[in-house]
């Protein structure tokens, strides 16, 4: 007996139990079958051949704009696993055939919930943030040359030092975004499991679509405008405090490059929502590395060894020793970052997403709980989270179970007696069918439960 769940579940209706659905998969019947199936909450297809399983998945893939996932444990599930967008294999008593054909594999069916709600969601979030930031920083970096072109006769002269161009993407800005892409979490895992509705942005493609992409690009272009024209405006007629003018190419290059690195570092600091020690190390380390390499490359030691390569001798010292240059960099940073900060704050206030609310609630709860001792942050911390269901999850023996109803008596007796299949594979977790109603009600219930509950 295998259960095929489609993402588009609607209504609370009936559950057709189709046996021998070879007919349903014929060309003239297949659309009707699909429409009927999608009108139901769950569909059970039993006594199906591997080919038919694959055909059902194929049907959903072709006609519905949905991402399909197929999970199975036996060799007869391989074709279904291969057909679906995501194939999940269960390694266990029926061998490892399914595992070898799958994209993800684990040992128990109930881990599917974690795969989707926790890891899948985090993965989507990290990927979207990573992509947005990557486009932003590269546009900010490259478009400066576009603006400079108007002033240098379009001679393709670079604004920055050659070595900065090489090292920018590899050394100065790669590690912080990598750390964000690996460690970022917006909501802790217990909450992800509690609020399955958090999964919706992934299904609706909300975090990185055309609109978000253009916003990233626009932000990058705006940053490049600021990073070019602020130094241009300040340095064109500026001089050092001893009268030597600051308008030379190398000073301009160092100022713009330093401002760029600082602005994109502040931006990744804003984007990172989960600061582990590694994030701290990478972000501050990248900034420190930039200044170290800058001063090293502009030093006389390297110049004496390779005079043609390192002809920026003395620039860093002359440039960064001027207060005017630091004032320029500070100004450029604030002009780039302040609108982003204001926009994010207002968005958080006026249109908070579910993840924002959950995150806020979680952090407020943590602050309240802290005086009472360390609580509730570990995985399955047994029973300390007041009023939430995670304690019960940690102790094992979940109270949630899946049900298959039939109008008539049907084959229930046959199934539960264990005569035709092993009882162990009946351990199925649902996708939080417990939480009915809107998430606001759930949240309110929890808030009231917390205020009246004592920690257990």
């Amino acid at each position, binding site marked *: 007996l295998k259960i095929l769940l489609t993402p588009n579940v609607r209504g609370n209706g009936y559950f057709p139990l189709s046996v021998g659905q070879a007919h349903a998969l014929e060309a003239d019947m297949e659309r009707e079958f699909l429409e009927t199936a999608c009108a139901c909450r769950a569909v059970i297809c039993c006594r199906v051949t591997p080919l038919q399983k694959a055909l059902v998945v194929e049907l959903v893939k072709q006609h519905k704009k949905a991402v399909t996932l197929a999970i199975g444990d036996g060799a007869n599930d391989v074709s279904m696993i291969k057909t679906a967008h995501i194939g999940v294999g269960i390694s266990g008593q029926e061998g490892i055939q399914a595992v070898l054909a799958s994209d993800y594999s684990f040992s128990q069916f109930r881990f599917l919930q974690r795969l989707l709600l926790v890891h899948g969601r985090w993965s989507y979030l990290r990927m979207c943030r990573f992509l947005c930031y990557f486009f932003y920083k590269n546009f900010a970096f490259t478009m400066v040359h576009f603006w400079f072109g108007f002033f240098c006769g379009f001679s393709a002269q670079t604004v920055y030092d050659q070595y900065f161009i090489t090292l920018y993407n590899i050394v100065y800005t790669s590690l912080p975004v990598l750390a964000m892409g690996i460690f970022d979490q917006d909501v802790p895992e217990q909450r992800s499991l509690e609020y399955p509705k958090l999964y919706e942005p992934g299904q609706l493609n909300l975090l990185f679509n055309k609109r978000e992409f253009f916003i990233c690009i626009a932000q990058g272009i705006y940053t490049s405008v600021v990073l070019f024209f602020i130094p241009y405006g300040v340095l064109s007629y500026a001089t050092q405090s*001893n009268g030597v003018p600051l308008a030379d190419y190398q000073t*301009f290059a160092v100022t713009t490059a330093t401002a760029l690195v600082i602005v994109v570092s502040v931006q990744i600091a804003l984007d990172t929502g989960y600061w582990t020690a590694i994030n701290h190390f990478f972000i501050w380390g990248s900034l420190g590395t930039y200044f170290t390499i800058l001063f090293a490359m502009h030093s006389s030691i390297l110049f004496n060894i390779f005079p043609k390569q390192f002809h920026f001798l003395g620039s860093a010292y002359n440039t960064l020793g001027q207060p005017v240059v630091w*004032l320029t960099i500070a100004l450029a940073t604030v002009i780039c970052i302040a609108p982003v900060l204001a926009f994010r704050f207002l968005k958080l206030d006026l249109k908070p997403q579910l993840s924002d609310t959950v995150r806020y609630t979680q952090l407020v709860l943590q602050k309240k709980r802290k005086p009472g001792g360390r609580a509730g942050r570990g995985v399955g911390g047994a029973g300390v989270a007041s009023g939430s269901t995670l304690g019960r999850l940690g102790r094992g023996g979940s109270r949630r179970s899946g049900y298959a109803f039939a109008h008539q008596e049907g084959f229930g007796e046959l199934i539960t007696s264990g005569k035709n299949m092993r009882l162990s594979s009946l351990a199925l977790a649902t996708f939080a069918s417990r939480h009915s109603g809107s998430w606001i009600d759930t949240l309110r219930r929890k808030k009231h439960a917390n205020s009246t509950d004592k920690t257990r």
Partner: protein
Amino acid sequence: MKNEGEAAKRPDNTAFTQQRLPAWQPILSAGIVIPSFLLIGLAFIGIGIGLFLTSQTIQVWEMDYTGFEKDSPCFRCTILSNQNCTCEVTFSLSTLFSVKSSYFPSDCSPYAYDSEKNPIVPCGAIANSIFNDTFELYQIINGTKKQVPLDGKGISWWTDYNIKYRNPSSVNSSFAKSFDGTVKPINWPKPAYELDLTDPNNNGFLNQDFLVWMRRAALPQFRKLYRRITDGDYAAGLPAGNYSLKVHYNYPVLSFDGRKKVVFSNVSWMGGKNDFLGIAYLVVGSLCVVMSVVMLVVYAKFKFSDDDDDA
């Protein structure tokens, strides 16, 4: 149901592999964002006022002297203002695109060799186009001209003078001989070893004017430091009165529609006159303050309406 084999296949249960690392999770709460905007706004306004006032105290006088006949040796100009400041003289050049890639020191073409295949020293287009107007400044006192001494020391970067550029060592104690086998750049009136015959520390490649010119400018309009006025009777600055600036007009700019200006300015801790920075700081500071007020209003409205809903 757990035996030794299964337990061994389990993934590590460390904080790192199970994504349980202790972390700081900031949220953009109103208590942090609004005060920080206000603080930054006020700080920027303060800095902006300081910069603007400093900039206002700096006196600048500039004059465009392009367009005079090439063979007119001198002209008269009179300054009729109350000037009492310590100054440097700078000349200013516009619409010369000096940042072409062929100016890279490693590639001297097409200014590397002359028609007889002799190497040009110093080579390259930047060196060839060195600015060669010179100036003499006189104060007119009771009808007689008194020369104002102009100091040309230390107008280039210390690193340029001491490390980056070096003269070839003299051959048979003659500096000129070390340039044997080379020719001067095409547009130069004199070869490099005759740039300043009075001071051996200012001759050849270590000539300060040469170094100043070789420091490539970033933008089509740029200024370069010519001289400082620091010595003698004018150490405290140029007193009010009439002055005459004698220009030896050599540099041709009309072919590319360039303009030449001479600028007198005094300097402060932030350099020369720079209104842009002060004004930019004031504008950004005020915008930040305005934004913080707007965010406060929005937050208050939203918070109170939210409380009303709950109640």
